[in-house]
């Protein structure tokens, strides 16, 4: 027990620093992937809600396919397919040898693309939940499109979409473990390396449980607080007042 603690601690033989650094890497790659997913999600939701037929069909295909295929395959596609394309491009421009995407970029793009499919549905449902009267009222008040987008649509969609957005974030955080197959040393990879090179694999995996639980719990609290902020202007319902 004590030996396990030394192993996971910050002493000269401890893996503490590496684990901390890997946790930061997991957070960084997850946030980057989430940002990519948010961009794709916004585009997808726009296409489904207001796009012309081809855009709508494209968004429909995007969400159907990406939600029905394992993320691992999407990561392989970006990892191997990315280097396939880059090497071909590199040779076309007179380069030689092998060109590839690094693990971070692959992970960010792959997990981002998958989460974007879920985010599309979350944002679309969020927009549909905004009462039409509010948008009409904004139009009546003479707001321009951009002002209306900034002052009415964006905050209102956020209010209805935030719970779903929180779920997508949790999913991204957990799926970032799959990026370890590209060799990027994020938390999962670091834990696996630690487990493989010491005689206490179990302690490392248990420590991984603790660290991932901490990440999902703390970020869950952040989203909860954000949700509270997003509904602060609304009248309190009896149930919430009693609580």
């Amino acid at each position, binding site marked *: 027990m004590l030996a396990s603690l030394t192993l996971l601690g910050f002493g000269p033989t401890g893996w503490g620093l590496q684990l901390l650094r890997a946790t930061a890497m997991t957070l960084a790659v997850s946030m980057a992937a989430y940002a990519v997913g948010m961009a794709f999600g916004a585009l997808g939701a726009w296409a489904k809600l207001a796009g012309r037929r081809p855009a709508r069909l494209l968004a429909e295909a995007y969400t159907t396919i990406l939600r029905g295929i*394992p993320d691992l*395959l999407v990561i392989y596609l970006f990892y191997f397919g990315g280097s396939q394309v880059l090497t071909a491009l590199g040779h076309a421009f007179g380069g030689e040898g092998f060109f590839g995407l690094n693990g971070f970029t692959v992970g960010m793009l792959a997990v981002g693309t998958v989460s974007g499919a879920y985010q599309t549905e979350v944002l679309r449902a969020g927009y549909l939940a905004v009462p039409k009267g509010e948008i009409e009222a904004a139009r009546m008040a003479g707001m321009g499109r951009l002002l209306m987008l900034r002052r009415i649509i964006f905050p209102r969609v956020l209010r209805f979409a935030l719970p779903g957005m929180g779920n997508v974030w949790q999913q991204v955080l957990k799926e970032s*473990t799959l990026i*370890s197959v590209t060799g990027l040393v994020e938390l999962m990879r670091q834990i696996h390396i630690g487990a493989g090179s010491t005689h206490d694999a*179990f302690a490392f995996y248990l420590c991984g*449980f603790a660290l*991932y639980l901490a990440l999902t719990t703390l970020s869950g609290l952040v989203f909860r607080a954000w949700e509270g902020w997003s509904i602060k202007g609304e009248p309190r319902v009896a149930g919430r007042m009693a609580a």
Partner: protein
Amino acid sequence: MDTTFLLDTLGQLLSGLPLTLELAGISITAGMVLATALALLRTGPRPGAWFVRGYVYVLRGTPLLLQIFLIYYGLGQFDWVRHSLLWPFLRQPYWCAILALTLNTAAYGSEIIRGGLQAVPAGAVEAGRAAGMSRRLLYRRIVLPLALRQALPAYSNEMISMIKATSLASIVTMMELSGIAYAIISETYRALEVFLCAGAIYLTLTFLLSRAVAFAEAWLNPHLRAGTP
């Protein structure tokens, strides 16, 4: 794109389909049984309910890959595990993957079934009680059928994510669909073609599953079918 390669790939991938189906089928079925037990425990008195809360919190708050690794690589370091009766199972990646998938889906599933249990109308329970049913009979005939029927649509999402989750078994050396796909990609470096073939198989699977669940739903809800009074 050349068709011979696509067809050849498709054929090779399909040889991994039985394993994918096995992993998904066993873990979904076992997971559903476990999920029902957990949901019943969760709605019961305190010590059991707290245990289930903790279980769900840990299993849903951590990544599936880590859970698979803990079982496959982590457990073997203990002598008492290696000398136990379970060792013949736990040393095989097949059973480790199934165990991890089952435990994982049971956590998500128990919350879905709990929602179904809470949606059982109080009147139905009272009627059963008034008819003199014992607690067991009440659960078997009234509560569970109503709860499971209620939970089924939401459960289909969980089943679909389980089919996708079986791909993680390839990371612990199982040669199911994704494992074979990886082998072909790293041999030929034709990622897009292999992705298209494997993706088509997974999409077909998830589509068939969602149709099957919709069918089961219609079968379980005869009163909602069109044409019934």
